């Protein structure tokens, strides 16, 4: 009996030793898993952007695009991000919403820009969505909601339009985990601090929207997809109080006014 126990233990140990030994190989790099993942994300992002692009008008006026581009450029410069790898699109829609796509793209609805009182609020939202991108929250959310098999099928063209629409809905209208939200908040604060942009904007924007009347909540999709806004705003304010900040404005007041005017006119 002792012989069997000994042999059994050797078999089990041999199995785990083989596993441990093989774990020392960087299989993810050898098998180019990251490159494959990136290709999948790129493809998926492009397919999803096609859906959003067809459903709403893309705003391409210089008065709208340039200020947002300036805010994105400041955040990228301050944090060492390659701006060319990121995309920012504005869609004409009254809904207060912004979201990230898997291919490092941020989509902002004109309703959200209109709801911002100043550039720091808008920069806060952009930084928050960039944090979701940099922390790979977008794919985590999609995998959790629909599963990897559906995502792979979608990118290989083996799914119908309904599945793609569902993926688009998940990204634009469903909430992230609370843990992911808080992580994105903390990261966004760091981005704003490094970019020398007033981080209070993110907190005030969250707080402002959380105080809105229930009747207007139906248009505040960014709140429903980003839960616990009031509590998060308080947490952000606490952290901001501990920071040593010297914010510099990004946009001239007239540029901000032109942006708001362009949104209401067109």
């Amino acid at each position: 009996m002792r012989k069997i126990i000994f042999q059994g233990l050797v078999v089990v140990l041999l199995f785990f030793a083989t596993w441990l030994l093989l774990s020392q190989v960087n299989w993810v790099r050898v098998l180019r898993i990251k490159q494959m993942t990136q290709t999948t994300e790129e493809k998926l992002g492009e397919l999803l952007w096609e859906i959003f692009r067809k459903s709403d008008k893309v705003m391409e006026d210089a008065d709208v695009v340039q200020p947002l581009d300036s805010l994105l450029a400041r955040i990228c410069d301050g944090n060492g991000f390659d701006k060319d790898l990121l995309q920012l699109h504005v869609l004409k829609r009254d809904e207060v919403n912004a979201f990230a796509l898997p291919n490092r793209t941020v989509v902002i609805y004109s309703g959200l820009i209109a709801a911002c009182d100043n550039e720091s609020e808008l920069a806060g939202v952009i930084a928050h969505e960039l944090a979701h991108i940099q922390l790979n929250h977008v794919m985590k959310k999609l995998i959790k909601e629909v599963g990897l098999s559906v995502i792979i099928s979608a990118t290989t063209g083996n799914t119908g339009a309904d599945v793609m629409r569902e993926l688009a809905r998940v990204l634009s209208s469903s909430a992230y985990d609370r843990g992911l939200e808080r992580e994105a908040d903390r990261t966004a604060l760091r981005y704003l601090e490094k970019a020398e942009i007033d981080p209070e904007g993110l907190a005030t924007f969250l707080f402002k929207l959380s105080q809105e009347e229930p009747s207007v909540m139906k248009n505040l999709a960014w709140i429903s997809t980003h839960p616990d806004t009031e509590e998060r705003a308080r947490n952000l304010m606490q952290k901001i109080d501990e920071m040593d900040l010297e914010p510099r404005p990004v946009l001239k007041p007239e540029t901000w006014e032109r942006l708001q005017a362009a949104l209401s006119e067109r």
Partner: protein
Amino acid sequence: MIIVGKFVYEPNEYETEKASNSYLMSVVAILAGLPMPIFNLVATLGFWAANRKSPYFVRWHCNQALLSQFSLLIMNGAGFWWTMTILFGSATITNYYLAYIATILLYNLGEFIVTVFSASKTRKGIHVQWWFYGTLTNLITSEKDKKPGYLKYGHYHGNAPSLNSTQNSESI
């Protein structure tokens, strides 16, 4: 490690064929069991149900094949569910996951080779006893009716078999 030798008695043609078939069934289970471990389970239960009243030589080799399938069932089952959590859950592909898949592939390949070898040897009436699994099989295979199939039906006039299943053995 494999010990090749003579069995406690000389199995007849019917017994060697049936014992060899149990390994061939095991080969099929290995091929199907890596993507779908349920086949390992079906094979395991199938061996047990079909051969529990067979002659000692057949039962012994079916049990050895069964025990090895049971190990694969556990390994492949864990790999299967890990893969499912990646495909349908929130788990990601890591070095540990890929190393685990490589490990079970190696074990399945090793078991495949040993099983084919055992099937061919058993068909010739040569007793093949695997390290650990053979020892365990000696322990669990019932010693009652530890006699050839033809003796059970009254046609055998040889000596009664000893407790050790392997005689005049050599290791490979």
